[in-house]
C-alpha cells in the first residue's frame, strides 16, 4: 500500500499527520467515505418511505399539530455550529496547535451535540404529549423511523467523541487517533448534511403537504 497522501484536502487531509501510520491514511479515509455513502442510501430509503407516508396520518395528529419550528431552528443551529467547531478542531489538529485547544474544540462539539439531542428528545416528548407517538399512524411511524435514526447517529458520534477524548488523555495524539478523529469529523459533517434533508423534507415538506 504505497499511499502517497493527498495534500489538497484542507479539512481532512491526513497527509500532514506526521509519523508512521500503519495504514495508508488515504485508504482509511476513502473507506470511511464509502461507508458514509452506504449510510446515505440507508437514510435515503427511509426518506423515501417518509415521503410516501406523508398522507397516512389515519386521523391522528400530523405535522400541522406537532411541529415546533422554534425548537427546530434551535436544533438546526446547534448542529450547524457543532459542524463548525468540529472543523476548527480538525484544523487545530492539522496545524499541530496545542492539544489543549484541540480538546477544547472537541468538547465544545460534544456539548453542542448533546444540546441538540436534549432538544430533540424534548421535542419528541412534546409530540408524545399531543398523541404524536409512532404507534398512532403510518405517518408517525415514518417520522419516528427517520428523525430518531439521525439522532441515534448523533448519539453514536457523541460516544465516539467521548472515547477519543479518553484515549487522547491516556496516550496522547497518536497518529492512529488522529486518523480516527478525521473520520469522526467526516461523520459529523455528514450528519449535518442529513439534517438539511430532514428539516427541508421531513419538517417543511411534511408541514406543507401534511
Amino acid at each position, binding site marked *: 500500500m504505497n499511499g502517497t497522501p*493527498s*495534500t*489538497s*484536502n*484542507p*479539512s*481532512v*487531509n491526513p497527509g500532514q499527520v506526521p509519523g508512521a501510520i500503519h495504514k495508508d491514511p488515504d485508504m482509511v479515509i*476513502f473507506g470511511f*467515505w*464509502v461507508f458514509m*455513502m452506504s449510510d*446515505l*442510501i440507508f437514510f*435515503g*430509503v427511509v*426518506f*423515501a*418511505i417518509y*415521503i*410516501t407516508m406523508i*398522507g397516512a396520518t389515519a386521523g391522528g395528529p400530523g405535522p*400541522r399539530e406537532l411541529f415546533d*419550528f422554534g425548537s427546530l*431552528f434551535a436544533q*438546526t*443551529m446547534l448542529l*450547524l*455550529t457543532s*459542524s*463548525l467547531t468540529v*472543523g*476548527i478542531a480538525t*484544523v487545530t489538529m*492539522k*496545524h499541530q*496547535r496545542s492539544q489543549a485547544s484541540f480538546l477544547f474544540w472537541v468538547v465544545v462539539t460534544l456539548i453542542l451535540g448533546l444540546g441538540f439531542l436534549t432538544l430533540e428528545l424534548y421535542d419528541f416528548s412534546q409530540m408524545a404529549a399531543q398523541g404524536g407517538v409512532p404507534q398512532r399512524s403510518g405517518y408517525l411511524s415514518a417520522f419516528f423511523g427517520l428523525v430518531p435514526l439521525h439522532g441515534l447517529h448523533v448519539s453514536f458520534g457523541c460516544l465516539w467523541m467521548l472515547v477519543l477524548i479518553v484515549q487522547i488523555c491516556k496516550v496522547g495524539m497518536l497518529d492512529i487517533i488522529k486518523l480516527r478523529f478525521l473520520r469522526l469529523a*467526516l461523520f459529523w*459533517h*455528514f450528519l*449535518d*448534511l442529513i439534517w*438539511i*434533508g430532514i*428539516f*427541508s423534507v421531513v419538517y*417543511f*415538506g411534511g*408541514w*406543507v*403537504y401534511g
Partner: protein
Amino acid sequence: MANKSGYAAHLRTYLTGYVLSVVLTIAAFWAVLAVGRENKSVLILVGLLGVAQLAVQLKCFLNVTTQKEGRDNLALVLFSTLILLIIVVGTAWIMGNLAVRMHTTM
C-alpha cells in the same frame, strides 16, 4: 481561499461555509414561515436552498472538489447520488401512482 495550506486559510474555509450555511438555513425558515403552506411551490424554494447548502457544506466542510486528488471521492459521491435519486424518485413515482390507482373507488 488563496493560500490553501495555512492555518488561517483553513479556518477561513470553515467560517465561510458556516456563514453561508447559516444564511441559507435562515432563508429556508423564513421562506416557509413567510409564504406559508397554502402556496406549495414554496417547497421548490426550500429544495433549492437545501441543495445549495448541501453544495456549500460538501465543498467547505467535507472538501469534495474536482481537483485530481479528490476525484475518487467526487466520483463516489456522484455515483451515490445517482443511485439515491433512482431509489427515491422511483419509489415516489411508483408509490404515488399506486396510491392513486388503489383508491379510485373511495
